[in-house]
């Protein structure tokens, strides 16, 4: 079955009467005119050389607008974390373009990249990555150090941030004295203390039980509502419910993206006819796609009725 046949069959299933062009035009109309926060074009990351050469990212095209909450899913080794590291300027790409706020990061010096990490990006790690010999408040205040803020002011800001996460009574605890959920909340507080516009979370609930996971996700959801751009890598399909956009990756490429119009997704889909290897993720993806299609169908019908 070729691509056109696939599109036709989908149209038949949903009883759509619009042409593919109409879908494109509609989507084009909805496109925001502001500069995207992140723009990736044909991004590649190669590891190893010769026979051991392996592309962790193999031509990733991605546009992220301000205020999006993106969940990136995919099987292990598909390039999720590599993508996140490149987005966070911790790693460089082998090929392709990465524009941050409309500016190519390839032109930025290491010092400038560090400054961007300090001022614009907040990292949340799966393994929390708190410095074990520093207490909670010092850990939270750490990113402010590299902004040249005085110690007293750093501690005041860190204390305020910890109060937001109901951890003000644990300020002088050491990291090992907290539960997993509390530790991750500290890590989120640390990521936010600089008031970054982009938050990159690499499996933030990977080491937490389901209750703690949902608490953390609620926190992230709150942040999203406040206008932060969040890019989260996760293996847990249930967490994608919090995201406004879900991207699945496979073999270093974007497999599906709920942000893309259906037709674009279908054009992408045949590359991997069997879909992602993770079964629950496929189900979730299908669920979200069908919801989206139902909404689309409804709006189109309203549009047609008004024309009549």
């Amino acid at each position, binding site marked *: 079955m070729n691509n056109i046949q696939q599109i036709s069959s989908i149209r038949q299933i949903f009883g759509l009467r619009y042409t593919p062009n109409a879908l494109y035009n509609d989507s084009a109309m909805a496109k925001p005119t502001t500069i995207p926060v992140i723009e990736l074009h044909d991004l590649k990351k190669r590891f190893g050389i010769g026979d051991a050469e392996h592309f962790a990212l193999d031509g990733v095209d991605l546009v992220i607008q301000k205020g999006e909450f993106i969940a990136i899913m995919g099987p292990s080794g598909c390039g999720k974390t590599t993508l996140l590291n490149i987005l966070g300027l911790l790693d460089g790409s082998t090929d392709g373009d990465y524009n941050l706020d409309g500016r190519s990061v390839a032109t930025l010096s290491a010092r400038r990249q*560090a400054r961007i990490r300090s001022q614009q990006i907040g990292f949340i790690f799966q393994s929390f*990555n708190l410095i074990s010999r520093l207490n909670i408040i010092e850990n939270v205040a750490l990113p402010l150090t590299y902004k040249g803020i005085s110690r007293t002011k750093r501690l005041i800001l860190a204390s305020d941030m910890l109060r937001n996460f109901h951890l003000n009574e644990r300020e002088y605890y050491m990291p090992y004295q907290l539960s997993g959920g509390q530790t991750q909340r500290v890590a989120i507080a640390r990521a936010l203390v600089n008031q970054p516009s982009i938050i990159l979370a690499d499996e933030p609930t990977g080491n937490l039980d389901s209750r703690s996971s949902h608490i953390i996700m609620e926190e992230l959801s709150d942040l999203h509502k406040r206008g932060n751009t969040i890019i989260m890598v996760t293996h847990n399909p249930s967490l994608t419910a919090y995201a406004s956009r879900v991207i699945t990756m496979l073999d270093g490429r974007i497999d599906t993206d709920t942000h893309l119009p259906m037709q674009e997704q279908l054009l992408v889909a045949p590359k991997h006819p069997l879909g992602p290897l993770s079964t629950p993720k496929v189900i979730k993806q299908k669920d979200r796609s069908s919801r989206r299609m139902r909404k689309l169908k409804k709006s189109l019908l309203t549009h047609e009725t008004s024309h009549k």
Partner: protein
Amino acid sequence: MRFLLLSHIQNAQQSLRSNRMRSGLTMLGVTIGVASITTILALSAGASKVVGDQIDALGGNIAVIRPGATISDPLSNLTQANPQRDFAASTLTETDVTLINSVAHIDAVAPLMVLSGTVKADSIAPAQTPIVATSPQLALISGLTVQEGEFIGSTANQDTATIGAQLSINIFGTDQSIGKMLTIRGKQFTVIGILKRTNNPINYNSVDFDNAVVISLTSGKQLNQGLPQIQQINVRSDSVTNLNDAIIELNKLLIAAHQGEHDFIILTGDQISQPTSQLFYAIAGLTATVAGISLLVGGIGIMNIMLVSVAERTREIGIRKALGATNADITVQFLIEALAIGLGGGISGYGVGYLLAFGISTFLTFDPVINWEIVVVALSLSISMGTVFGLYPAIRASRKDPIESLRQYN
């Protein structure tokens, strides 16, 4: 930037505190190195000061005439072997002493002829006991006083001797030995005086008068087969202002007497103590260099411990980089830690060094000197140790890949 530096200092403090034992032991390495150098420098400066102080105490109207051509570089004795000089005949003679006596404004002249030989009484004196044959005026020029009896006199019996207090105890078992007999190179002498303790074995006469036997020049010649062998002539002018004129005059006279040959040296003021001081400084420099090896070991200790610290804290480096630290921030952070170890070791080494120096000086006849030069040497050495040996680990830390660092198992 100021806050960042302060933050690095606080961070170094925290890091060192969290590894107290390790940091302390590394610091100890530097402490030992700096302490040994401080001790050597303080003691050598003390020894040099002794001679200088003696010249100052005697006033500025003393000159010393020594045989041999003028040595432009006193340290050449150390670097160039010149064995024949030790066996060469002295160019100073009794005639010179008489000539110097005739110079205006010279009020005291004391030739110095130092012999060695067996000195014995109830028991035998140590082998290196100096036998000083001189004139009675030595007491005036060198400020020697007697605690009992009298100094050798020109009119007294030639077979008399004045001996040092310690020598008296060594050979007679008491410092009350007036009238007792002692044998010098087989010839009997009567003790007519006991010198007051000087506690100055290091002096411009190169004689430890506490352990010396002082006899007249005539007796000295008799002990030396009738030949005078004058190693030094001490001269005193009637006033400081007249010393220069007197020296010019005696210089002329001596050159004329030596057939136009300038085969003697006239030293005044600081020049008298300079060869001794320079010799001490040269020896101190040499021993301090050897002690510097221990400082080098301390520096290698800093590098070793900093490399361990970098390896242990690789993950922390990754975290800091992810949170916005630049390579320079990481370099400075680790460099400050190394500097703190070096400086801490330097300060404690300086203290320990002086404690040691004062401890050792209780067995010596001089005190160590406290001066700013030694502080500068100790601190600059420790700072450079910290910088030189901390730089490589710090650069290594800053070059760590953040991703690889974050992957390191905690």
